[in-house]
């Protein structure tokens, strides 16, 4: 059962790759339109040094932005939960930040934040992309605490701090973890989009590799960079899913069918 769940997608991917390879050879598709998987693999081996450096740079920006988004989103949500006035004043600003397309404000950010330090602009854009899901889910989670438990804590004269740490934060944990799975992916997307907008030479992440090889019609290398990018995304998602299982395994309803 568990083996099937891992093996069947792998099998599907392998079959798709085989078909791809066969069709490219059969129809003799030019390499600058669609390279065969074998050509992509060769490009990856040839350029792995520079590609890995770029992947590491993109990953570093994503992770930094993600960590800052989680820290900022959680802190702000906690602040909101303590003061309705602060929430009413600030939440609309957060929404505006969220609904404005990141690509549209990117040039501004590059000018303001990135003039002397391009990476700072990338970081800021990745952060904006990742921040809102954390803030909004965490706000919801802190508010979703069981009213019976809140009554109980009031009955025993608990302090606000006790209510926050012993009820609200644990209640919000499942909400936070599912927001983190979304934000992890968004921070990567944000970092890549930012790099595209910031333009060539400003930084040398995977997006830059993609643009560069696109300009030089090295489509195989472009695919290799894309492959690394999706591997990064998958790795981020799996790490966060594993964290979620680890933290919720023993008590949360969503883990029920996996036994106790």
């Amino acid at each position: 059962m568990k083996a099937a769940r891992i093996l069947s997608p792998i099998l599907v991917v392998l079959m798709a790759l085989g078909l791809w390879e066969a069709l490219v050879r059969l129809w003799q598709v030019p390499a600058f339109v669609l390279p065969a998987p074998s050509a992509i693999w060769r490009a990856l081996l040839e350029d792995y040094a520079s590609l890995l450096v770029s992947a590491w740079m993109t990953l570093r920006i994503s992770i930094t932005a993600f960590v800052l988004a989680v820290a900022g989103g959680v802190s702000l949500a906690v602040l909101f939960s303590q003061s309705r006035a602060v929430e009413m004043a600030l939440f609309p600003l957060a929404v505006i930040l969220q609904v404005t397309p990141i690509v549209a404000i990117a040039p501004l950010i590059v000018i303001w934040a990135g003039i002397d330090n391009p990476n700072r602009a990338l970081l800021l854009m990745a952060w904006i992309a990742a921040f809102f899901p954390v803030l909004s889910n965490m706000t919801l989670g802190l508010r979703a605490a069981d009213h019976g438990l809140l009554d109980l804590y009031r009955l025993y004269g608990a302090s606000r701090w006790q209510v926050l740490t012993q009820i609200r934060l644990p209640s919000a944990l499942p909400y936070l973890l599912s927001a983190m799975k979304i934000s992890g992916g968004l921070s990567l997307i944000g970092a890549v989009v930012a790099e595209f907008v910031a333009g060539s030479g400003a930084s040398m992440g995977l997006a830059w590799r993609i643009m560069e090889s696109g300009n030089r019609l090295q489509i195989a290398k472009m695919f290799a960079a894309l492959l690394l990018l999706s591997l990064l995304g998958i790795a981020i998602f799996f790490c966060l899913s594993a964290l979620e299982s680890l933290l919720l395994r023993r008590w949360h309803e969503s883990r029920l069918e996996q036994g106790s």
Partner: protein
Amino acid sequence: MLTIENLGKVFPGGTAALAGVSMQMAQGEIVSLLGPSGCGKSTLLRIAAGLIAPSSGRVEWTPPLEKGGIGVVFQDPTLMPWANSRRNVETPLRIAGVGARERHARAMEMLTLVGLENFSEAYPRTLSGGMKMRVSIARALVTRPPVLLLDEPFAALDEITRQQLNDDLLEICGKARLSVLFVTHSAAEAVYLSERILMMRARPGAIVNEIRINAPARRAEGFRHSPQFAAYCGQISTALRAAAA
């Protein structure tokens, strides 16, 4: 022990949940509040517990209530799903700042009292409804309060479990000489548990009748099947119907 005088409660929005409610409860007494759903039983209990403020009237505890001087069991077990039974039972002590060692010992003592000493490390989702309710009762008792308030605690349980818990509750309360205010909508449960039944009717919630049950506080074996029990239940059903009309 508890004196309530001319109590009224109007919720914001205008629902008059209670009007002119007066009642008393003596030390060591078990009193049931019986009435159809929506008649204000929970509201009365929550006001008595100090969880919500009355709109008018007076609530007085003598001696005055201290923190942890009252145990409350709600209709749902309201356990923290992320904590095992023992840590759930420890909650009131943790709030009061009691040290870990004593917290642990007292929680185990209470779990033993409710017959769950072997489930101290179990998480709520692995427990049955009846067991969860036992944890909730253990938690209400862990501060050794002189008063216990219960709001339809067994309404969601099956009949057998419910009778078992009724018996256990009587035994625990008898041993500890607890004063108990027990909210229920079941006439049989009220007769079985209490010395006095206060009957309520709705819109606005008010106490319309008081019935004393003359049976030994420790119910004799087979009380549930005695003609006396059946007679009380019959009398109360009739009175309830009259009150609702």
